[in-house]
């Protein structure tokens, strides 16, 4: 035991010696939380819109004002000609063009009908949809105001909505669990796979293997510091998201931390597995960084819900551990549900951990090649 503690201490020294790595270890989650919280959002603000007004009457001007002053849009240009649309789209600043037909106002008053078209830049589908939806809503409101009370009489159904779990529709509820999931698997898998492969590559593994330490102690000793550091990372993210965004943990904190420990364990064993199949650090880094990063971000349901993907991705993503952890952490943190609701996901993570351990033990070589 004393021997083992000595070994763990050595590993800690390895890590703490390098203050830069330590700084980044805690800097990455902090930076991600802040970027997702303040810099990026899927909503639109100040999207560039150009107006092609062939009518220039009081109503079109009023409507234009209403659209531009909504806060979603910014007027980039006033076009005079239909052929200019392609030109300004190619410059990339304008996301949509709103076109009023000739005699827009006159027709609206005399015939009760006039037409407006929205041409959006489909090369950014999400922005294009949002811009179109928002503009449509603004125009519809405008028409409703014009129509006055007669319209309300014809409305027969009034739906009401309750936004459950997140009544203020904050995006934090989505990305904080995502960041925890992403950071833990990447850092744990990366750290462990790299430190073990490093010993192999530099031949120091030989020194360790001939020492009286048993292989299992070597692995445990390697993993232990990262387990503790990752756990501190979880606490850091939770405290940060609570302080900065006021995001509380609705469910049981103890359950959440226990699940995080399980997930950290799983990621560490994945790292060990990667190290047993890699012969040098570059290989380990490639597998754990390039191989894991994009699939984790894109297929785990972090940003893009799995339900919206083609059916086959339900199966493809089922081999990715983050997918299950995201469900677990969202359930506990945001919905406040207990173990009853997440036992299946928990079980899958446990099974994965066991499988990774089994595979690593089989692949781990105590003899040198």
């Amino acid at each position: 035991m004393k021997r083992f503690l000595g070994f763990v201490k050595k590993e800690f020294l390895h890590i703490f010696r390098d203050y830069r790595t330590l700084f980044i270890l805690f800097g990455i989650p902090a930076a991600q939380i802040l970027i997702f919280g303040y810099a990026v959002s899927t909503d639109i603000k100040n999207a560039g819109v150009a107006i092609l007004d062939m009518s220039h009457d009081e109503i079109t001007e009023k409507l234009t004002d209403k659209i531009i002053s909504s806060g979603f849009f910014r007027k980039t240009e006033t076009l005079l000609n239909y052929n200019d649309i392609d030109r300004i789209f190619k410059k990339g600043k304008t996301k949509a063009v709103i076109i009023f037909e000739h005699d827009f106002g006159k027709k609206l008053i005399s015939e009760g009908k006039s037409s407006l078209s929205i041409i959006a830049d489909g090369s950014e589908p999400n922005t294009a949809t949002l811009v179109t939806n928002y503009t449509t809503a603004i125009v519809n409101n405008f028409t409703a105001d014009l129509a006055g009370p007669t319209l309300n009489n014809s409305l027969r159904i009034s739906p009401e909505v309750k936004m459950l779990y997140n009544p203020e529709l904050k995006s934090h509820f989505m990305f904080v669990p995502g960041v925890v999931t992403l950071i833990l698997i990447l850092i744990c898998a990366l750290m462990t796979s790299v430190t073990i492969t490093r010993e192999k590559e530099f031949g120091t593994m030989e020194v360790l293997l001939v020492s009286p330490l048993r292989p299992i102690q070597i692995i445990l000793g390697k993993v232990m510091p990262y387990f503790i550091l990752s756990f501190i990372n979880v606490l850091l993210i939770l405290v940060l998201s609570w302080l900065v965004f006021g995001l509380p943990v609705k469910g049981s904190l103890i359950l959440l931390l226990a699940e995080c420990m399980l997930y950290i364990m799983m990621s560490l064993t994945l790292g060990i597995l990667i190290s047993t199949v890699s012969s040098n650090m570059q290989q380990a880094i490639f597998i754990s960084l390039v191989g894991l990063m994009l699939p984790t971000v894109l297929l785990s349901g972090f940003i893009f819900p799995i339900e919206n993907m083609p059916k086959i991705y339900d199966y493809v993503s089922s081999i990715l551990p983050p997918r299950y952890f995201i469900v677990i952490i969202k359930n506990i943190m945001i919905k406040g549900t207990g173990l009853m609701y997440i036992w299946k996901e928990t079980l899958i993570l446990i099974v994965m951990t066991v499988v990774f351990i089994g595979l690593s033990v089989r692949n781990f070589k105590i003899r040198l090649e």
Partner: protein
Amino acid sequence: MRLSPPLGGWGAKRKKNKMRTIFYLIRKEFLQIFRNKFISKAIFAVPLVQMLILVPAVTFELKNVRLTIIDKDISPESRGLINKLNGSTFFKVSFSTFSDEEANNLLHRNKCSMILQIPSGFGKDIGNGKQGKLLATIDAVNASSAQLTWAYFTGVVRDYNTDLIKSNLTTNPVIPLPGIEITNRYWYNELLNYKYYMLPGILVILVTAIGFLLAGLNMVREKEIGTIEQINVTPVRKYHFIIAKMAPVLLIGLTDLSLGLIIGKLAFNIPFEGSILLLFLGSTIFLVAVLGLALFISTFSSTQQQYMFVAFFCMIIFILMSGIFTPYESMPMWAQDFNLVNPVAYLMRINRMVMLKGSTILDISRELISLVIIAIAFTTLAVRRYRKTT
């Protein structure tokens, strides 16, 4: 012994020698990369496989929102509404129940994402000319999905409303209202195919990741195992060495780009509106910038682990801020200012604009010039920071 100057003078010979030095160094780098069996395959296989798998998966499009219906009314009107919801592409009625508790449970369990309650008397109220009430409960953990769901739902209800009014037209004539007819079209991507949007983006990320890691790790590895000493004691100039470190990775990056574009064309039929040459020009400048930064960072790092972490940190920030998933314009000013030095943000825009819209060199001149400045700055920093002395 007197040496007679060779044809073309001493200068030409020296120049030729210089070229030869760089050529040999580049050859050495290629050998080092391709000697590693895993890396030599992974740098091409990983982008290929990830593109094929990831591009079709990613979409913001909402379809098949799973509904749980609590229909306490059971009238022709409520059934009509349910049919209308089922018939739309956005909704799928997955469960029907009379118990609020069970419905909540389903929502908790993630079995559905919306509950629609139709209270008793809904049909009667509509028949009597009163307003029929509906209550929707939406799982709003994902705020943007929830908003879209609600928008689609009100859309379906509005349509149903119009149907009702039309069917009652004979009994209850309505005065024609002033209406603005809105037509909308999407240019360059009429069906809003997300693959067109995501492919250039994912391609940029993969090329960035491979270039950034490979160049920096190779440099730090030489330091870590000590072989850099052998280079440092030779007359090889600093910039020779930096160029030699960059060139192979640059070529690999461009090969990956070509592979990605071929996949885009063959597997996903992505349109190529603009000039491919322009795309490669932009990507080359971009890669020089990224590799310059990678080598600059590598001068600070003494171990591959250290480098990897700094690189990971930079990459995550660059990629998240680049506007790959999110509209660039809605970022706050400070974020847009940061993006002035973010090469990934520029290439993200260039790729999408050139590929999908056919933007010309004039349209993207600002992005290209900025990239050139970044590339020169980072490469100069890398050369200056690199010390041959210890």
